[in-house]
């Protein structure tokens, strides 16, 4: 223990994880109104208004057009890129009647069935998805070895 905190180094590491967006301050600020919109669906009366006219309901929130289009398309990977957080977005897919499994599978490029089968088989292995940099280094080493 000991030594000063380096918040920049701390945050920097998060960008090195493949296929993962950590919900940092930067994302929280970008997605503020998107997430607050999603949260509003915790009230039954808001869900009714939302279902009656999604676009009109979205227009009540100071979100970017990109964010609104991604919500309408239920493009969750895009929503994560635009500052969405999964626990907030859960209010959108729960309102749609989707489970976490169904909604989460849409982000993996797999069908729900294939995704569920992967989970039943023990889930996605951490091998090869720990670090972008480590993957690049390993690839580099492999290439070097081959070219020898």
């Amino acid at each position: 223990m000991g030594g000063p905190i380096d918040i920049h180094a701390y945050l920097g590491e998060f960008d090195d994880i493949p296929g993962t967006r950590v919900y940092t301050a930067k994302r929280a600020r970008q997605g503020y109104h998107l997430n607050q919109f999603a949260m509003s669906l915790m009230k039954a009366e808001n869900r009714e208004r939302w279902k009656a006219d999604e676009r009109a309901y979205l227009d009540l929130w100071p979100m970017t057009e990109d964010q609104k289009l991604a919500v309408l398309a239920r493009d969750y990977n895009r929503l994560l890129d635009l500052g969405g957080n999964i626990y907030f977005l859960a209010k959108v897919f729960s309102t749609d009647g989707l489970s976490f499994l169904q909604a989460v599978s849409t982000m993996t490029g797999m069908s729900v069935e294939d995704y569920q089968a992967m989970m039943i088989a023990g889930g996605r292995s951490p091998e090869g998805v720990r670090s972008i940099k480590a993957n690049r280094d390993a690839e580099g080493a492999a290439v070097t070895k081959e070219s020898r």
Partner: protein
Amino acid sequence: MARITHGIACSHIPALGVASDFDKWEDPYWKPIQEGFAPTRKWEAENLPDVVILVYNDHASAFDMKIIPTFAIGCGESYKPADEGWGPRAVPDVEGHPDLAWHIAQSLILDEFDMTIINEMDVDHGLTVPLSMVFGKPAKWPVKVIPLAVNVVTYPPPSGNRCWALGEAIARAVESFPEDLKVQVWGTGGMSHQLQGPRAGLINAEWDQMFLDKLSGDTQELRCIPHIEYLRETGSEGIEMVMWLIMRGALGKETRELRRFYHVPASNTAVGHIVLEPVNGAVPPSATVEGAASQHLAD
């Protein structure tokens, strides 16, 4: 004198709440999990505490982006299940224990933990699913509950070390409560899971088992795991395991494992569950100024 009798750790996967609420336990997908928890239900009925300090995280239910407390302790009379988008779960209201909760809150603040005191809030699956797993479907929960909500959604969450230290401070606070109460501390969330992005579905059973192993005995290695290791090894939502360290810290110097259950999957997640007993519940003394002043007065 109140005392901490046991610690329980338990995933709080929403789908488990659905399985409970809609009686799906006989379904082949859910049956192994039902069987995994059955012995704990029986054991818990025989070792029923008066109060559970239930460490969990709010999943954007009680707290939105307007306010994000790192550590929030519920001092209210009761809490209703939250509406997370599909209506509130049909489970009993959660009864609090304001006497003990306020006592702990006050003690923790004097002990230099910067608590947020909560008197009214709804509680989401993070709190109600573990109750269902351990108590089934009673008309009324058989224990009072002190909710302890930890931010693990917006980064940074508290460090593992800080969580463990909070557990130790909770132990000191419980011990100084004059009423004779049996108290359990539950750590919830985890184990490995990732609910987002192309890497979703990550499970790391080996790491999870290592984590379960090190909850027993007198090692304190777990308090030094940095956030980045949880993220890389256990998926973006595996960070919830820092909450288990509050439970572990509260059990003191040395613990013994009474039972363990580990199963993959429930929905996107590894179900992990452990029951721990303190062997030596000693925790380091507080080293605060107000502590010294109040001690002097008590002498």
